């Protein structure tokens, strides 16, 4: 018997009990639909995180001043004063994996424009910072190296600050006050959104020349951080090692002592986020698979009932020449057809559910062809697995007993 004939017989047998077949399929429909939707949610989230990290620049390293413990008291991050401008110059000079670097210091304070004020983060840095972070301007430009040299009172503002201070007013050329000093706004950064890695609003920031910050606002001459770009994403690991050994050397840290700085690698964080995303996807998929297994048990249950009901039919088929293999493949095909049809409907339902999630919750749901292929293969496997025992039971019947069955 060819496969088409077997499949046709199976479909007709299932069509004889439409309601029962539909209910049995429902288990598989829900199972496959749940797997498709959940994997879609997981992969969508993963993709979003990856995009955000990529937008941040995956070849970026963040060198921060470290934590120290003095007399048993933990001083917190940024408490050391050992990270200095000369360190940055040394990094640029001596680490071959490093492409560029920008120094940074920061403080938090009130920014005033007219009658409005806004508490925000003031970062001091140099113009290359915007290139390293791959951060475009929606208006104006960065301050210049000359501004840095002269410790000029110029500022670049983020989108959140612009919205809260200026509203509809064009901020370019306007004067804002930081600690009662006037600053001219020269640029407005394009919105970058919430940082995926740290969860803070990256647009809530004012950037001024590092010299201006150090001399006129904080009065500190050490750096809080250095933003470094490696020559490539792969090189960022080498850069991390080079910077670490260079700074340990420069800061005269003995081998048994801890670093007085920290180097964070965004490629590392991207990998971490990726792993976390995969785990979440797996978790969601495995929870959804439970319902697929329950659906499979439903198939097995109905197939067992069906085999018992059709004992006499099995006897007739055997008497007129069906082999055990014929009978087994007949019932197995029915189970597989049930699960495949259920799986196909389940895919459609899963896609519908994903669309619904996207529309109502605004989550990104990503349905990959791989997920669909996997769902089809998986539902077929469920059919074979849970159809095997009932089919075998049918095939093992004694034709004489089966013919006598009432």
């Amino acid at each position, binding site marked *: *018997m060819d496969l088409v*004939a077997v499949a046709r*017989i199976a479909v007709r047998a299932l069509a*004889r009990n439409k309601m029962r077949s539909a209910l049995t399929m429902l288990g598989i429909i829900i199972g496959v639909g749940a797997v498709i939707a959940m994997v879609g949610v997981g992969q969508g989230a993963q993709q979003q995180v990856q995009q955000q990290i990529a937008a941040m620049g995956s070849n970026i390293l963040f060198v921060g001043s470290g934590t120290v413990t003095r007399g048993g008291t933990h001083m917190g991050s940024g408490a050391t004063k050992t990270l200095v401008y000369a360190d940055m110059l040394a990094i640029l000079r001596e680490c071959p994996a490093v492409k560029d670097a920008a120094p940074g210091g920061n403080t938090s304070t009130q920014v005033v424009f007219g009658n409005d004020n806004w508490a925000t983060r003031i970062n001091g840095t140099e113009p290359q910072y915007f290139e390293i972070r791959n951060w475009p301007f929606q208006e104006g430009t960065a301050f210049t190296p000359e501004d840095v040299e002269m410790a000029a009172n110029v500022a670049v503002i983020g989108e959140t600050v612009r919205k809260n201070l200026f509203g509809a007013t064009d901020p370019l050329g306007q004067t804002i006050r930081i600690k009662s000093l006037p600053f001219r706004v020269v640029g407005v950064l394009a919105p970058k959104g919430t940082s995926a890695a740290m969860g803070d609003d990256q647009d809530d920031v004012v950037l001024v020349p590092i010299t201006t910050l150090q001399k006129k606002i904080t009065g500190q001459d050490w750096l809080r951080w250095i933003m470094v770009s490696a020559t490539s994403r792969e090189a960022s690991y080498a850069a991390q090692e080079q910077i670490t050994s260079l700074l340990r050397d420069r800061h005269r840290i003995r081998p048994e002592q801890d670093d007085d700085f920290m180097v964070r690698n965004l490629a590392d964080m991207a990998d971490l986020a990726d792993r976390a995303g995969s785990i979440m996807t797996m978790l969601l998929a495995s929870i959804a698979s439970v319902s697929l297994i329950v659906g499979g048990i439903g198939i097995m249950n109905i197939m067992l009932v069906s085999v018992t009901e059709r004992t*006499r*039919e099995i*006897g*007739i*088929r*055997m*008497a*007129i*020449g*069906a*082999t*055990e*293999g*014929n009978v087994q493949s007949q019932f197995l095909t029915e189970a597989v057809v049930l699960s495949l049809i259920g799986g196909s409907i389940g895919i459609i339902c899963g896609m519908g559910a994903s669309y619904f999630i996207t529309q109502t919750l605004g989550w990104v749901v990503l349905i990959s062809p791989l997920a669909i292929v996997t769902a089809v293969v998986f539902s077929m496997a469920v059919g074979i697995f849970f159809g095997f025992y009932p089919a075998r039971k049918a095939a093992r019947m004694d*034709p*004489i007993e089966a*013919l006598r069955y009432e």
Partner: protein
Amino acid sequence: MSQSEINSAPSQLGEVRIRVLDIHKYYELGETRVHALRGIAIDIVSGEFVAIMGASGSGKSTFMNILGCLDKPSSGRYFLDDIDVSSLSKDELAAIRNHKLGFVFQGFNLLSRTTALENVELPTLYAQVSKAEGEKRAREALDLVGLGGRSTHFPSQLSGGQQQRVAIARALVNKPSILLADEPTGNLDSRTSVEIMEILERLNDRGLTVVLVTHEHDISQFARRTIQFRDGKIRRDELVVNRQTASQVLKDLPVEEDQ
């Protein structure tokens, strides 16, 4: 009656279809052992019309199951068209049932919710026959039993006699060498019974070997040879004398308004 007489009973026809040599069959029923067949030996040659008779428990059903390759003897040998059936595997037995044997049962055993034509086609699905050829053969077989016009009817839309004729057509579709009929008239009224016997008679006249199990004496008299079973043994094996033909009896029966 001696053994030589048994073997020589049908003499006018040629090749041996069924040769059974000293068959025994035991069943284990819990602790007790049932000895259902106690040394059966029969030859049936092609073109014979044999009626197997006997009370229930005489072993005739067990014997039919063995003849039909649904069951295997505990000892002894069974040759069907010179093939030693007792040594075949399950799949080979299924193939024999498909190609060489046609079954007709007391309870018709048609698949419900399946048309007459599809019921008749069923054995061709398990033979190496194309779909078109199978359908052609099924239509021919239905014509042969006079139901060509009812091919799309479901069993529930057919009378008992018609259902049994569909079953006969199904038994014929793979052109078997032997037709085995187990109480084919057991569920039918007397006129319909004769009609069914008339079909079997017609098939036999065309050269088909027919083996029939019945407990009705009237029915057995349409056969050419009767074999009586009792307690797992053959008690009597004789040719039917003054054989009536079913077609003649049918003519003499008053016509009933049943269709």
